């Protein structure tokens, strides 16, 4: 990680390049936040891809959200998907990253580094002023007991209560407070299960699904359902605050778009079936 963190940032993104050979990391941000990984002796492709994409996360003006990476973006930059899944699993168990299931319909997962998530949680808690000050201890309990021990994307009600009661007496009001602050969401299919969520991410998720549709329709309208990557990257999406590189990566990883080498350069084509 030390080598790639010193290289220049920016540059052209190649959607399907080997992640190790692509020196795109932003020096400052990456080196500060990845002390854990820097001290590692072996790096996996997945870890480097995560760092790289975190550095490329677009700057949003309206909402302050720490960088998160979609799982499909990882699939598009590292060749072996099984290895990505396994590396992600071990990173999850080591509590370096946290995975969240998004509710944009399909099998979307967002990956966020643990420090980013904790920082985001602090912001959310600060912004949400609880009416009853005693109840706000639950946030500390949540951070200390639940986040550290439960690395899954969801948690059941009894388990949540039992983990929180390590800090103190837990009532239903505490859980309601957590939901209102945006740290947990109820699942629709099952009342007893909660998803972990990234707080304040709602508007970005809406932008994500609309941006996907817009990008797909953009390519669909061309005569041969394909477009040169260079031209595509210059466009701006109207409906999504995230930039177009984010969406391109995401759609390639989920298989809706594919890249084709051609004499002009890299083409992005809509994949049939």
């Amino acid at each position: 990680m030390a080598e790639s963190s010193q290289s220049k940032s920016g540059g052209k993104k190649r959607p399907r390049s080997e992640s190790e050979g692509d020196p795109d990391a932003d020096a400052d941000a990456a080196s500060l936040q990845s002390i854990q990984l820097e001290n590692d002796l072996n790096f996996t492709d997945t870890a480097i891809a995560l760092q790289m994409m975190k550095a490329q996360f677009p700057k949003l003006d309206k909402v302050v959200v720490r960088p998160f990476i979609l799982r499909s973006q990882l699939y598009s930059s590292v060749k072996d998907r099984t290895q990505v899944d396994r590396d992600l699993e071990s990173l999850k168990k080591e509590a370096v990253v946290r995975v969240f299931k998004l509710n944009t319909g399909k099998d979307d997962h967002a990956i966020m580094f643990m420090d980013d998530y904790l920082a985001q949680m602090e912001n959310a808690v600060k912004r949400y002023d609880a009416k009853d000050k005693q109840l706000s201890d639950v946030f500390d309990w949540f951070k200390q007991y639940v986040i550290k021990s439960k690395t899954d994307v969801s948690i059941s009600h009894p388990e949540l209560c039992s983990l929180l009661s390590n800090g103190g007496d837990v009532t239903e009001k505490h859980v309601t407070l957590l939901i209102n602050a945006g740290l947990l969401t109820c699942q629709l299919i099952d009342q007893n299960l909660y998803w972990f969520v990234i707080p304040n991410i709602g508007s970005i998720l809406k932008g994500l699904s609309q941006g996907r549709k817009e990008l797909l329709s953009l390519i669909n309208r061309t005569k041969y359902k394909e477009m040169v990557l260079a031209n595509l990257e210059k466009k701006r999406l109207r409906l999504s605050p995230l930039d177009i590189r984010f969406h391109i990566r995401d759609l390639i990883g989920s298989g809706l778009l594919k890249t084709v080498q051609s004499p002009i350069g890299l083409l992005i084509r809509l994949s049939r079936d």
Partner: protein
Amino acid sequence: MGLRKQVMIVLARASCNELGRLLKNQGRSDMRPREGQARPAQPNKHFVWSRVGFVFRLVCSSRLRRGGREELYMWTWKALNQREDGSLRPSAFRRGVVSSRASSLQLSNAKEFISLHRGAINSLEIDSTEGEGRYLLSAASDGTVAVFDTHRPTSSSSSSSSSTSIAQHHPLFHLPRAHKFAISRALWYPIDTGLFITASFDHYVKLWDTNSTQVVLDYKLPAKVYGIAMSSIATSHSLIATATADVQVRLCDLASGAFAHTLSGHRDGVMSLEWSSSTEFVLITGGCDGAIRFWDIRRPGTFLLLDQSLSQLGTRPSLLPTPTPSNNESTSLPASSKSSSSTPILPAQKRRSHKKIQLKPPTQSSHPGMASSQNRATAHYGAVNGLRATADGFYLLSSGSDSRLRLWDIESGRNTLVNYEAMSIQTSKPIQLAVTPDSSLVFVPCMASLKAYDLWSGTTINTYRGHYESVNCCFFNAQDQELYTGSNDRQILVWSPSIPAATQIEEADSKGGITSIDQDNWSD
């Protein structure tokens, strides 16, 4: 040299059985329809369209992919040399030939099935009698059932695009009104082809006698039947497990004609089920709630529930115990530790209002086969619409309507995290997956195409595009290494290894008379 020629000829014969038989049967026109059965109707628009469609498909696929064939030739030549000097054993040679044929499948230009179904084809199955998998049973959404003979064609038609003619297989019999509504699954009786079983959306499961095509037994179920299964290794029971839209799985006994028992535990309808290929008492069911449950039918209750968050890195669990994440405060639940083996997963105990709660370690309940219905672990985020166990009984493949295919290690009950590249699986119907017997390839119907993935690494080996609408079912015939697929466009397509016979007969020692298709005969 002699051995090689002999082996080549054997290969040539084996790889195009249909052509050989066709040449023998030319002119034999005594395949009349059975008495008492109406002749197929006059060629109507659909029939003509399907002819045109077939020729179109043939022309499109006639540009054979060079890569697949050449690899096959290179491997075959090297292996033959090794076989000649004794460094390769016969069984290894056979395995190599079989696996290279299985990975070089293309739309067959020598064989086709003339399907008289008027509805989407939902189920295809070849009988599993010892040594001869010959009869193909197909069932469709219009309530019809047909049986085809895959070895012997009924007629042949010559098409102008190739010099060989296409062997056509008409159904041996076609039952036009087998069920009132769509048939979701048709199965051969596992022992022989004297009986077959059909299950339909009209809530009935019927047992038919093949020779007289009459219903022998029927069972009325409370909801529409999505799938049935019979164990092919069962010696002490002859139970048909039925998966319905009702939450209970019912076992119907063939010997007595009544229901044996019901298995309850699912929280929504059950869409797919499969008997274990290693024990005759274990049934695996996948439900619309996304859960996969393992039942031992000798005891009530589920003994294993697959949870997608329990995973192991690698296809076998690691031998050394791996460190669990730090949970100093609460005792670790079995769900968060990686080193637990198949202990039954019990629900969390109801919470008490103590200051410091220690979650009670999971206690063994009254008997080991009992798992709770409160366990809400899901194997998929949507419904589980296809299940297939590998032939060795160690792994289970499950496909879900969240468009994921997962490989589970049955013994440890964990997700092996093999990621099968992007696919889109239809969500409304159960689909039929196929796995090669040597567990190297898995065939998955993905919308209008069929994809073949390498089982262990998840990479796409091939995409088979030939159907016009969504593919529902596929069956891999291990005897001839052929793949049969059925889809909503009412066609059954045959995919066979892409080795035309004529190129095989071409030999190094034949100086004149080049008989291969892609070499020309011009003089220099």
